[in-house]
């Protein structure tokens, strides 16, 4: 009855490793939010992170682009190890896109300016080229007609797709998603997930914190289950959803289903 879990070791991947976490700890004061996290992510791999509230999912992906500073262990992204050196941090952030639960679009800029800002300011792409690039990304998320609007004039689903386009315009090697659909009305979730599925199928390396099991089944190579700051269990979506080894996983799945 037990199906063999080929991915039970979180450090085993197919192909080249692009993100490497070794023994990562993170404290907020006395509270330990991450406990000895080990994880390797392969190129073009899609990893879905699940777990109860407060289990450290956000903290985990925020450590990868240094929105939070880990206090022990190593994090290496595309061959660059995160250190206190601001240049290392900038380099990793350039290669790593992030999509937030609350979209975090810049309300004072038009959609187009939201997207062209970073390519122009960080990569020094000329204005015209940046705008063409931005329009391509907007077409990819299927809202090119919204380019001249302000974020406040868009629906939540449209805003989140702009946020995805904004990250993609930096042509990152890795995309991090922190509950991208949990602030959305149900009827808008699909349009965002569709964009993410398309992105996954195009070969983007992605770490996605989400409880959308349909998305996980469709595109995730591995599902990572976290609780209390630890990686409790890793495996294919089928394994985690149908035959989880750990009681905490079972309990959690019974609650969200």
């Amino acid at each position: 009855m037990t199906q063999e879990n080929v991915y039970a070791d979180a450090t085993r991947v197919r192909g080249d490793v692009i993100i490497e976490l070794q023994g990562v700890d993170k404290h907020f004061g006395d509270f330990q939010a991450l406990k000895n996290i080990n994880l390797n992510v392969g190129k073009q791999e899609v990893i879905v992170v699940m777990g109860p509230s407060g289990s450290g999912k956000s903290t985990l992906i925020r450590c990868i682009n240094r929105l939070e500073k880990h206090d022990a262990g190593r994090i290496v992204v595309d061959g660059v190890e995160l250190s206190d050196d601001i240049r290392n941090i900038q380099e990793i952030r350039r290669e790593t896109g992030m999509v937030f639960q609350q979209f975090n679009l810049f309300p004072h800029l038009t959609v187009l300016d939201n997207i062209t800002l970073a390519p122009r300011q960080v990569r020094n792409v000329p204005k015209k080229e940046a705008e063409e690039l931005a329009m391509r990304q907007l077409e990819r998320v299927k809202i090119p007609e919204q380019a001249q609007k302000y974020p406040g004039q868009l629906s939540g689903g449209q805003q989140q797709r702009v946020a995805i386009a904004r990250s993609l315009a930096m042509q990152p090697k890795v995309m991090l998603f922190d509950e991208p659909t949990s602030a959305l009305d149900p009827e808008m979730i699909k349009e965002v997930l569709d964009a993410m599925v398309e992105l996954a199928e195009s070969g983007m390396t992605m770490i996605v914190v989400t409880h959308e099991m349909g998305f996980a089944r469709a595109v995730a190579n591995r599902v990572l289950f976290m609780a209390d700051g630890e990686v409790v269990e890793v495996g294919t979506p089928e394994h985690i959803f149908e035959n989880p080894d750990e009681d905490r996983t079972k309990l959690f799945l019974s609650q969200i289903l």
Partner: protein
Amino acid sequence: MAVQTDTAAVHRESPAVRWAKENLFSTWYNSLLTLIFGALFVWLGFSVIRWVFFEAEWEIVRVNLTLFMVGRFPREELARVWVSNFLIAGAIGLMAGAAAASAAAAAKEAGLPFTQSTPRNWLQRFWPILLLVVILLQFSQTWTPTVLTLVTIAIGVGARYVGLHLPRAVRRWAWLIVVVMLIGAYGALSWFGGVKWDSWGGLHLTLFVTVAGIVLAFPLGLLLALGRRSSLPLVRMLSVGYIEFIRGVPLITLLLMGIFALGFLLPPGVDPSDVTRLIVAITLFTAAYVAENVRGGLQAVPKGQTEAGQALGLSPWKVMRLIVLPQALRAVIPAMVGQFISLFKDTSLLVVVGIVELLQVSSIANNQPEFLGRGLAEVTLPFVALIYWVGSYTMSRESRRLEKKLGVGER
């Protein structure tokens, strides 16, 4: 049943009557209040009109109008004041035109409705200033100021037209032209054997000190606010210390210190004029409050904005400049304009250090032999108050307008 009779009545009544019934006479005590306040207003209005048109002896203002406008500015050099007025009107017009053109272009690109200001809403916006100008011209009795005022207005309107139709490439540099024109306005007054600002006075000096205070205090306050958030402890401590010190001291103390007490801070041989010292004191004072306003704005920008910028790889400085500051400043426009209105009104404190600003002019006029002891401060003070009110009210109105306009991209 009652409803039916009501609707029947409504059909016969004009909207004004209906409004009055609903708002002024809805209950017996509302009716009573309406009557009492109505009587009060009628009496007040009647008294004011009687006083303004029949009782008040405006002679003192009429005779001293030039004194009120420019203080002791040498009369033979007055042409310089007009030249500087022309330049300032041109600068303001150009700026307004260029701003309106960019706003229109942005709105057009965004496919948003954009309503150009019509003469009618210009009247709504600037009637207090217009009123003041009419009053001043009515007092001046001679043709020269009227003609020159009309020329000033014409230049302003013309410059606005030019600003509105500048080619895009030139428009980007319009601010530079404006700065040059403003420096030119100062130069017209004081260069080439002109009049140093210690001899300026009246409304002219009040406006100059206000504008100089705003222009200098804003960047300084911005730096202090950023310093307060700096990751360098020394910078942070200095900023906090400065802000808290200044906010704990009344402006008048700073003004007096600026004149009498701080000489030891200056290198020997350097002795700035009183007006210079006062402008510095006012700037230092206002900057601390600007800093606190900006700090409030910075705190109001959600943390997610900074994080989104960082996650895109923007440097901390660019996150601040391109993402946080524009939002923070927009949020504090009303507070900031409030601050600048205080500054404008606080220039009246210069009276205690003997600068010939508006209040001082009022007392000089009342000490002239022909007006001495006639209690005419009751005429000059309301006149000064009117000038302050026109300036303050216009600023606050324009700030509300700007706030609404900038709200376009609001979440």
